[in-house]
């Protein structure tokens, strides 16, 4: 097991290096560099040269990459060209919002999806099953930003149940924090819930058709025991994989959702960095988001191996 975990971690290293290369060079392809954006209408060649030298932008690209990588490994992601704030602290300030959004979306999706998927599989071809399948299809199809817009329309503007946007920290006021976070979490988590529900249903159906389930049934095991002790655990394996992939979706989707609900998270920060052509901030955000995704997948693979000891790649 340990050998597998080490091997899997080693496999992630070249991917992380690849991500750093992309994060660095992709940004360099953006037309008009930071200095041009910084100077704006006051742009003149002489000042631009001074600023480029100051930020090290006059060195060859490869040299710039290695300087940047060396600093990143040492924990220095540079400073935002606009706010002068260290990139790492800018991200660290916003990260709790995005993590809370992802966590709440995740909880919402599994609390709805796993029971619904399980019931739909047990009561196959019943009204519940058809209803759940339809909801699942609708959930995967509805764009999250439109769902968010509808929520604002109904629950904020019409019913005035929840605020339409903004954020209050959980530590400051937990109740208000939840009022601000419920709609964004549901809007973001619905698609994930739909995918997980569909997967739970199909995986459960497959497990319920296995011989050992029929054997347990024949031995007179109660339905409750059959589902909880025999079927559910085994049907979880593909569900865990899907959940891992969906975490990436939550990370990407948070960009759109944070924008709609004016949440000060990493998604908004990335969008702001993209709009301002803030190199250092963009690189930091890309590196963080992509590495976060790789690490989630790594953890999923390890959990997967724990759940299913037969799996060793």
């Amino acid at each position, binding site marked *: 097991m340990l050998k597998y975990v080490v091997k899997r971690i080693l496999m992630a290293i070249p991917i992380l290096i690849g991500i750093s290369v992309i994060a660095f060079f992709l940004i360099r*392809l953006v037309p008009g560099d930071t200095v041009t954006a910084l100077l704006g209408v006051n742009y003149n060649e002489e000042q631009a040269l001074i600023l480029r030298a100051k930020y090290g932008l006059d060195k060859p690209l490869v040299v710039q990459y290695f300087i940047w990588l060396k600093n990143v490994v040492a924990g220095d992601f540079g400073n935002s060209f606009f706010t002068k704030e260290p990139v790492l602290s800018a991200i660290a300030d916003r990260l709790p919002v995005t993590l809370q959004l992802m966590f709440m979306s995740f909880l919402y999706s599994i609390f709805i999806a796993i029971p619904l998927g399980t019931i739909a599989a047990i009561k196959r071809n019943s009204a519940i099953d058809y209803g759940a399948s339809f909801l699942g299809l609708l959930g995967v*199809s509805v*764009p999250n*930003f439109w769902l968010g817009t509808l929520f*604002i*329309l109904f629950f904020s503007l019409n019913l005035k149940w929840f605020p339409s946007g903004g954020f209050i920290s959980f530590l400051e006021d937990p109740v208000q924090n939840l009022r601000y976070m419920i709609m964004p979490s549901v809007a973001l988590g619905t698609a994930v819930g739909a995918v997980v529900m569909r997967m739970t249903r199909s995986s459960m159906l497959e497990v319920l058709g296995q011989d050992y389930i029929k054997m347990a049934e024949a031995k007179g095991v109660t339905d409750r025991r059959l589902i909880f002790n025999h079927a559910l655990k085994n049907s979880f394996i593909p569900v865990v994989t899907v959940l891992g992939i969906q975490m990436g979706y939550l990370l*990407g989707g948070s960009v759109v959702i944070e924008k*709609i609900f004016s949440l000060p998270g990493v998604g908004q920060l*990335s969008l702001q960095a993209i709009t301002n052509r803030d190199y250092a901030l963009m690189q930091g955000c890309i590196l963080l988001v992509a590495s976060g995704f790789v690490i989630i997948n790594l953890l999923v693979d390890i959990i997967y191996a724990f759940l299913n000891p037969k799996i060793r790649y």
Partner: protein
Amino acid sequence: MGEIWYRFRKNKLALFGFSVLLVFIILALAAPIIAPYDPFQMSTGETLQSPNSAHIFGTDQFGRDILSRIIHGTRISFKVGIISVGISLVVGVAMGICAGYFGGWIDIIISRIIDIMFSFPDIFLALVIMAILGTSLTNVMIAIGIVYTPIFARIARGSTLTVKDNAYIEAARSIGVGDLMTIIRHILPNILAPLIVQITLSFGFAIRSEAALSFLGLGVEPDVPSWGIMLNEGKDWMELAWWVSVFPGLAATLAILSFNVLGDGLRDALDPKLKNESE
């Protein structure tokens, strides 16, 4: 083929998706004839009118007819779908077949590229590419095309690996058929089924991505009547006019839903063994 059609026809939901898409295709092709108004025509006396007999879906803040804009938006969405999925398909399948067929270091390099591309959440990568390319319809299609390339590459690679050890491939190579010919004549036709399913599902992804990018202001040009642009503009008027945000989103959801059910139906029809998994 007959058997596939028979299985497909039995799936009512897939048939529904297929029919809805046919309607969308007709709307897209005949938009100028079908749309009751010019989608760009502003009318200061008719701003933000709620749905009524003259404007079934109401009008926007410039007095433009929302139904006509949605009908013209179908053209944009389907154009984005066709071209971006075309890009992902051609590039992805070429990458995947090369990796699976030739193996060795070609496979290692291509597989690592695919892994790295998969490390970026799709909408996030599309946003970064749009920042590089700048907002325009063509660039949206390129960005979405790049983002979905690794999916096709992974499917093509996996399918090629299962197909390439078959006796007919060995037979073709033993009589001196070249690599390119083997790929075109023998590999490609045998990996089509999973690709067709993925093409259908990717259309839905592409439509959603375009709408999301345009909604964020990093998609098509603001004067293009795309569903995402309409939603972007609509959100500022939501308090006064719900219809400006509701109808374009409904159109997008219906189109994506139809592609999803069609994709599911095709998967069941093309490979009945997978039926359980897709249910």
